[in-house]
């Protein structure tokens, strides 16, 4: 009898509190906090279709669980943690993204966004979300697309073609070094690629926040991927929203590969490019002109 009374009291309480706690404020908080431009955004990533709304663990629900603290309920990068974060979280309402396979100024593909979420961004608070199931990441892509009207009026750009990598030779490295000098990459990235060029301290992003050029000598992986092809793509697409422009109209594909091969020599890893450069530099100490102003580097 006593246990029966206990059970009745308990379950009555559970039902009442479930009704109050779950039925009203919690469900209301999920959507009312988030203010997208559209609730019909979708994404196509491989065989997956992501949904911003309308499915279990939709983009809205998952965005709230994982992303809203930094990117904010409106997707404008003004989450509660944004004030503490450097670099600042991405503003999805501008639909401007660094890591794309598409030409500068165009929208990225869904795969680009998916890869960014999966990879995370080195030297920032954006972690790799690879542990989340793929469908959930696809839903997040749909949610990211829901914050800007651009996705309703524009289509993503056509991904650039990445040509076959040229052989890694000392000639390629040296030509890349010439391009590094000629195209004044050193002004931001510094003569030794340490991110300490004369213009480095003046750089700002599209939100007018200070931004640092990439420091190759730290050995960090690149923001948009770790491979040579990823670095090639960065040259050709540029990193929109940052001072890093696209060189697609300036250099030829084989020159881009030469630049890739040279930049690898600036990193502290044991790579074929670095080995070639070290051997060359040891044998031609007096012939090498330093990179920087008023020199003719070779």
């Amino acid at each position: 009898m006593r246990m029966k009374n206990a059970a009745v009291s308990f379950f009555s309480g559970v039902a009442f509190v479930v009704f109050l706690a779950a039925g009203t404020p919690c469900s209301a908080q999920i959507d009312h906090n988030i203010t997208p431009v559209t609730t019909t955004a979708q994404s196509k990533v491989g065989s997956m279709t992501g949904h911003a709304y309308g499915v279990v663990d939709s983009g809205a629900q998952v965005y709230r669980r994982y992303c809203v603290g930094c990117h904010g309920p409106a997707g404008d990068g003004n989450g509660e943690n944004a004030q503490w974060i450097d670099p600042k979280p991405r503003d999805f309402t501008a639909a401007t993204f660094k890591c794309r396979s598409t030409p500068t100024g165009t929208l990225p593909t869904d795969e680009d966004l998916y890869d960014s979420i999966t990879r995370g961004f080195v030297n920032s608070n954006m972690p790799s979300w690879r542990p989340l199931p793929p469908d959930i990441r696809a839903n997040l892509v749909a949610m990211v697309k829901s914050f800007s009207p651009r996705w309703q009026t524009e289509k993503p750009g056509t991904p650039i073609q990445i040509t076959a990598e040229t052989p890694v030779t000392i000639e390629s490295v040296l030509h890349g070094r010439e391009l590094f000098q000629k195209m004044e990459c050193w002004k931001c990235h510094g003569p030794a690629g340490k991110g300490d060029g004369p213009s480095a301290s003046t750089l700002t992003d599209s939100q007018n926040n200070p931004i640092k050029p990439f420091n190759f000598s730290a050995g960090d992986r690149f923001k948009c991927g770790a491979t040579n092809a990823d670095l090639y793509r960065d040259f050709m697409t540029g990193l929109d929203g940052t001072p890093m422009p696209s060189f697609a109209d300036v250099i030829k594909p084989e020159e881009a590969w030469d630049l890739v091969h040279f930049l690898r020599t600036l990193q502290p890893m044991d790579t074929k490019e670095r080995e070639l450069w070290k051997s060359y530099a040891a044998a031609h100490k007096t012939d090498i002109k330093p990179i920087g102003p008023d020199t003719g580097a070779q």
Partner: protein
Amino acid sequence: MKLSRKGTVNIRWSLISSFFAFSFLVIAMIVGDSQPAYTLPIHKVNAVPAFARKYGLPCSACHTAWPKLNDFGTAFRDRGYQIGNDRDSPIWQNPAYFPMTARITPNWHLEHTTNQPLDSIPGGGSGSTTVSGSFTQHGFDLSGMDFWLVGTLYKNISFSLLPSSDPTAVWHFENAFVRFDNLKGSSWFNLKFGHYELNELISEKRFLFLSSNGGLYQSYHFNPPGDSNNFGLGDNQSGIELMGHNANSYTRYSISLLSSNEGGVNFTTDVVPGAPPAGRTYDVFATFDQAFQLGHDSMAASRIQGFVYAGQRPTNYQTSGGAPLVGIDNEPFYRVGVAGDIYIGKLDIMPFYVHGYDNVYLGASVPSSGPNSVLPTGARGPSWNAGFVEFGYYVNPQFVAIGRYEAVRMQTQALPTNASNYGNIDAYSIGYRWYPFMYSRAGLAFHNEYSITKSMGTIPLSGDGVGALLPASTASNPLPIWSSSLMIGFDFDF
């Protein structure tokens, strides 16, 4: 004879009903005043849990419902509490940053246990006899407290230090270890050294049950009645662990070499003073688990794990003047089983199974050598099967309903005179947790839980009892002892 009479029962439940009404009123007030989470006054509280403060991520980034880890939280822990973006070393943190979090649960709870040997006259004395009765206690209380420091000492060197107290502030070290992560640049090699939780797929330290009878897995702590083995799968152990995982922690393994001291200190078998001395043998614990996505609308990946624990425990002691010094005459035992964490939509189902075996000398509590090494006739090594099915239904990230059924069944009794069901356990738990706000600085959960256990001839593992009623309940004729817990509390992490 029953000590509890109908009149007192009615009064008691009247009080309980009143308390329910009061608690619901409080909730109604909170709910009625609810606003979107970001406008809650508590949003301005200047206090931060360790990782939320360090990385700016909300609790929900790592927890399905804290403290239970989700896929991202599992990977984060496996990487040595690092997100891997070259911002993990303390050098990147503001010097004022301190990797500390505190957790405690002020609560009201009711405990009720049946078939207990009680004095017929309270206070005992002349004329009092031992009778079967029930006792009930309820009131406001505190849980134990965790004061957890955890993080990185350097890139790829992490640590954890968890002083934990009981409600009276008697402290012990729940864990304390240093971990060398990503050895040789590979996530497949991570070395942990110290005192730590075993790498179990279903963590008893991170589950969502808090009541006296529900706040432990019976399967993790069961040993047959009369057995001298004090091992518990749920107890943190001391040793060294090699652990590895792939990039998303969907494939994981671990191998631990552990002292046979049950996580004790000073070569004893417990973390509190006065425990028996430990043996000089070492245990081994090995696991392998694999995750996979089940369907296209699951809130997390599903996981399965196989595990085996093998070790030895002393059956005798080297002594001085009769006082035990070192455990000797060690005899083997093992636990082997499988666990799962299956997500179907918003439903999380966690099945668990373990088979246990203890050597006959452990089971009969008899030294395995020497003049006292005389086993009772027909004695055998005890074995048993145990398991549970637990569920959590995530209505949304701020509300989870929880439940569990658990069973322990003896397979082989150590003594042939024991009844086949002596020591068997059935346990049921149900409840829910409501997180009134979700952000990246602190956590609060309203916790409501009811748990009940039936143990045959023994007091429940919760300790809510004084023993079986003799001679009515014996090993050959055990009576069921029911023990229930009702708990309402505010679980906060700061």
